[in-house]
């Protein structure tokens, strides 16, 4: 019961803050709403008993990623009005298409998972003495999901090289 109340309160907060992010006219305010949104998602992770993810959500998303967003806001010239696009409805159509695709995806997940029992918990760790959330996550990540973990490092490498190529001074 308490968890249902917590979940629906958080869901309303997360959705409301998400709407605030895209409707606020001032970009910096929009980014600050995003911080609140990330913090609410972190609390949602705690409610779902994913403590490690909650801490990471606060450290990486609310801390690191938002700093990056703020730098991007400060890099672009917000005083100049955006140039009028030749077809102003193009973006609206693109948005409609993308949100339709997300809706289809969510509907697919609901249809696929309806009636199936959710897996009771993560598979038990094969080694005695692994009890905590972080230990369980680590055990899954470094044994069953070894390849995605190594691919993640390649993804980070691509992000690093991309940032350097984009931001490098022409000499």
């Amino acid at each position, binding site marked *: 019961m*308490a*968890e249902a109340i*917590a979940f629906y309160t958080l869901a309303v907060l997360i959705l409301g803050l998400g709407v605030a992010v895209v409707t606020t006219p001032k970009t910096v305010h929009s980014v600050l709403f995003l911080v609140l949104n990330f913090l609410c998602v972190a609390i949602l992770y*705690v*409610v779902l*008993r994913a403590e*490690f993810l909650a801490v*990471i959500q606060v*450290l*990486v998303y609310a*801390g*690191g*990623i938002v*700093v*990056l967003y703020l*730098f*991007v806001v*400060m*890099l*672009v*010239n*917000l*005083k100049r009005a955006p140039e009028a696009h030749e077809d102003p409805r193009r973006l609206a159509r693109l948005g409609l298409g993308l949100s339709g695709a997300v809706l289809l995806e969510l509907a697919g997940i609901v249809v696929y998972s309806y009636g199936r029992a959710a897996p009771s918990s993560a598979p038990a760790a094969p*080694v005695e*003495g*692994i009890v*905590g959330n*972080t*230990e369980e*996550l*680590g*055990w899954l*990540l*470094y*044994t069953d999901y*070894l390849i995605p*973990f*190594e691919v*993640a*490092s*390649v993804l*980070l*490498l691509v*992000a*690093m*090289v991309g*940032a*350097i190529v*984009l*931001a*490098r001074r022409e000499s």
Partner: protein
Amino acid sequence: MIEAYVPILLFLLVAIGFAIFTLIVSSLIQSSRYNKVKLEPYECGIEPVTDARDRYSVRYYLIAMLFVIFDVETVFMFPWAVIMDELALFGLIEMLVFLFILVLGYVYAWRKGALEWA
């Protein structure tokens, strides 16, 4: 389980309450005579010369991006370090592969001068 987080919730409420309390009390007892100098933004005593909403150098973005990448790398190392004894040599090798790929990026950043400010 979730009851363990009640102290954190209390802490959060006290922190928010203290901020609101301070704002309300100071707005009640402060004198409100303003002039032009008083309303100027204060930054270490240096007079502001231009609008604060100026464009910043792209190098800040580069540094922030590199920070986030190595931040995520450290996050991946944390659960590994917690169960390092159980993972034994296999875990050490996979983490070394992970680090090697990222060190490639670090060497690239270094060689391209991305870490130099001047």
